[in-house]
């Protein structure tokens, strides 16, 4: 004990006093009260009252270490800590009668405490290394994941960076862990809750590596990445495998840019678990004139799930999207856009019925909505330092159903600390699965009004009220109050 104290004293004495930490604390308290449409046991519409209180606490410590470490341009050996914690509590009558036991859902817990992320990091350490240690979230064009562990990036040269990560996947079943990052596909107790433990509660190791090519501000960049998640079999029975792969994929993302006029960007993911390209994205953006842009996109997505899920066997379909959008900057700070899309659902080999009353027919094409969906939207937005206003209209139809509606929003600073906002919404919709006159179609009009006020340095209050009328009710109320507190030291 004495030795520990002595070591501590020596370390404290040796630490230079010129350290210049910057602390930033962000505290947000969000209260929401709203009504959710539900169905009473006798089939009538009913409105369930939901009251939620959410508390975010974010802490960022930056510039850890003496200024002398940062080099001539101030960009070397930057150390920092970043964390975010959330408590989401539910009150009101919404949770009464919620499923319990094996059917209980994490979303229906009365309160959920999550550490969204908390990591210590370094940038440009020794001019070569970036790292993050702790709970962290990462995303790119074809991947989005969270894990507890370490992520390292070594800048081998100006053109090459190698990356490695290792840790365990963040899953909703783990303490202080949000389910939002977990792979879909298996729910609690899906292996037969009566007799088997939950596979999801087992730690799932994750490892990955990547190579990135291209200078930071270069005209062309590319990144090749591999990531795998696996888990040991919980409560293994004789004959069962010792472990299983939950996710395993190789992805390539790349972008190229030519004279601020043409940009091409895309990504492709090879899912090794299924021997399938399950995500392909390609986009082209062209600056036609200094005030006009056009974007063309192609997406292909085949749904895949956690390797433990049988839905990987069922979900053999895929869809392909073609999208185009046009943007124009008009005078006086107005920007307008028009966009359209077509979605094609690809035929699977067994969609032509081989037996039954529809033998020989393509049931995929003959079903509700057919094999295609399409839509368009257009709108304009005006922004200035004093506020914004925008209007949007949209229509789409085909597989899934039809939507037709519009939305108008305005927000203005009335006086220095006060902003007012209003929104009006109206739309009609119809599901392609429902027959007319049932719950499968409706019309909704909604109004929002509220404001934001700066109560003091770093303290903001945001109030918003909403009321909707529509086919299913004469009033549906929603209220939101948010207090934000930012403090820096």
């Amino acid at each position, binding site marked *: 004990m004495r030795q520990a104290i002595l070591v501590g004293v020596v370390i404290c004495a040796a630490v230079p006093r010129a350290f210049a930490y910057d602390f930033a604390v962000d505290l947000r308290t969000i209260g929401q009260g709203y009504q959710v449409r539900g169905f009473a046991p006798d089939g009538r519409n009913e409105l369930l009252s939901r009251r939620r209180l959410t508390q975010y606490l974010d802490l960022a410590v930056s510039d850890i270490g003496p200024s002398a470490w940062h080099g001539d341009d101030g960009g070397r050996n930057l150390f920092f800590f970043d964390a975010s914690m959330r408590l989401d509590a539910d009150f009101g009558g919404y949770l009464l009668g919620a499923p319990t036991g094996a059917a209980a859902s994490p979303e229906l817990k009365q309160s959920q405490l999550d550490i969204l992320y908390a990591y210590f990091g370094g940038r440009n350490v020794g001019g070569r290394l970036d790292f993050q240690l702790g709970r962290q979230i990462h995303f790119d064009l074809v991947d989005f994941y969270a894990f507890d562990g370490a992520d390292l990036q070594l800048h081998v040269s100006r053109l090459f960076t190698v990356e490695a990560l290792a840790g365990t996947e963040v899953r909703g079943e783990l303490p202080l862990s949000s389910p939002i990052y977990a792979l879909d596909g298996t729910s609690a107790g899906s292996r037969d809750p009566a007799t088997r433990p939950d596979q999801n509660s087992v730690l799932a190791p994750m490892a990955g590596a990547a190579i990135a090519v291209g200078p930071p501000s270069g005209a062309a960049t590319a990144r090749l990445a591999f990531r795998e998640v696996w888990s040991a079999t919980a409560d293994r029975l004789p004959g069962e495998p010792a472990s*299983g792969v939950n996710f395993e994929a190789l992805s390539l993302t790349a972008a190229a840019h030519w004279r601020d006029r043409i940009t091409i960007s895309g990504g492709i993911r090879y899912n090794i678990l299924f021997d399938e390209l399950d995500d392909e994205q390609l986009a082209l953006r062209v600056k036609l004139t200094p005030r006009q842009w056009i974007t063309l996109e192609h997406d292909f997505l085949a749904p895949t799930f956690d390797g433990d899920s049988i839905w990987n066997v069922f979900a053999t379909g895929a869809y392909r999207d073609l999208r185009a959008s046009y943007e124009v900057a008009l005078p006086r700070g107005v920007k307008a856009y028009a966009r359209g899309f077509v979605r094609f659902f690809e035929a699977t080999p067994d969609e032509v019925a081989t037996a039954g009353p529809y033998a020989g027919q393509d049931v995929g094409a003959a079903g509700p909505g057919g094999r295609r969906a399409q839509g368009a939207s257009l709108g304009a937005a005006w922004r200035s330092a004093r506020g914004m206003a925008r209007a949007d209209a949209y229509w789409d139809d085909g597989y899934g159903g039809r939507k037709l509606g519009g939305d108008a929003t305005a927000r203005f600073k009335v006086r220095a600390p006060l902003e007012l906002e209003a929104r009006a919404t109206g739309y009609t919709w119809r599901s392609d699965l429902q027959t007319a006159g049932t719950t499968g179609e409706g019309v909704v009009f909604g*109004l929002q009004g509220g404001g934001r006020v700066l109560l003091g340095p770093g303290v903001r209050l945001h109030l918003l009220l909403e009321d909707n009328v529509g086919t299913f009710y004469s009033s549906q109320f929603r209220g939101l109050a948010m207090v934000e507190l930012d403090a820096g030291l």
Partner: protein
Amino acid sequence: MKRKRWLSRAAVAATIAFAAAAGVAAGLASASPATTEAAPVAPVAPPGPSPLIYPGESLPIRFDHARHARLGATCEGCHTAAAGSTVAADNLIPGEAACRGCHKIDRANPTKTVPAGQGAARCDACHVDPAGHGWMPPASSNGQTPAEPPPVVMPRPNLKFNHRLHASRGLGCALCHTAAAGQAMVTRADLPMMASCLACHDGKQATARCAACHLTEPDGRLRVQLATAATIAAGGTGLLEPSGSLRGFDAHGPTFRRDHAQAGRDERYCLTCHRRNDCIDCHGGVVRPPDIHPADYVSLHVVDARRNVPDCSSCHRLQTFCVGCHQRTGVSADPSGGQPGVRASNPFGTGTGVKQFHPPGWARDAAGVVIAAPRPNSHSTAAKRNIRTCVSCHREESCLTCHSTDPTRGPTFSPHGPNFAGTARCRFLSSRNQRACLKCHAIGSAELDCDR
């Protein structure tokens, strides 16, 4: 009757809302702008570089750089402070004293004439009024208290720049100020833009860090709130946002919040300005973003969910978010379908509820017999295309009721397509995670061998 009532109510409410919004807009459009600092004199409309970086200036003078250069003037001869300047906020515009070396100015004699070939000394030779005409002191001043000409105003640029550092590395003025010596009047439109900086700041010759030049917050992110009287007067938002000139898809246009997947390819780039929480607020947030999900989206979402537009799972984990709400609102499978605790008389219960969620022929025919072969209305197509929609109510047990090899559960319809056993998909799945196979197939059964 009821339908008419809410329609008329909605119409009135919508009219009031639009009128209010339009009124606020009209009222504010005529109001004076908010200011955060003293307004500059007659800001110039900003062609060229962003007014956020170089706010509008006021240059009520005539000055011919090219002519002075021809006469032998050097940059440092007039801009004496430039070589020693370390911050961009330094005022490097030469004062009257710098002119006096050649221009024999006499403030007591504003109309002073000089011999041909010498620098003019009249006030209006250099100074102009706001209308652009030559400026002279008002006659009433009568030489007693010389009036000051309209001032030159150059608001501080929102940049970090160290002239001394660049000069010490041998970089001449003309490398960045390319137009200065070759044209008459030089304005903010001729100041260096980011593209010229990046010619050297490429990560090799000099750092490519954004924060090396842009102003930063204490945590190292770029300072993006740059609203000043000058930037507001220029018609901007006061917000530093990517224009698209650097990476194309990063342009924060009116559809960016919905269409930023390509820009999000490089998270490091986003985090240059954004905090990590800015992602979480939508991707896993607890507050409905009204521009993505309009009012009463709960009613509308059935269309988007079935079509998977946009990809719901980019923000919601379907087996927690969707299932939780569906269970509680009575839109879920029958309690006997494997979900104990769900309200006992679920109106959407499979086949037994008072309402029917799925259309006729979804799983059973009109006689109640389980459908063995796919039909246009049956669930097989929906499950293949977007089983995520099914996941919002059902769990794997629902599928296993009919799609298991265990006859005690029910029918044993195979979900595998034709010749599945011989496919690479079978081999890959089986070799990497046979646990999924064992949910339907018995341990040690022959079906587990893809090469049988």
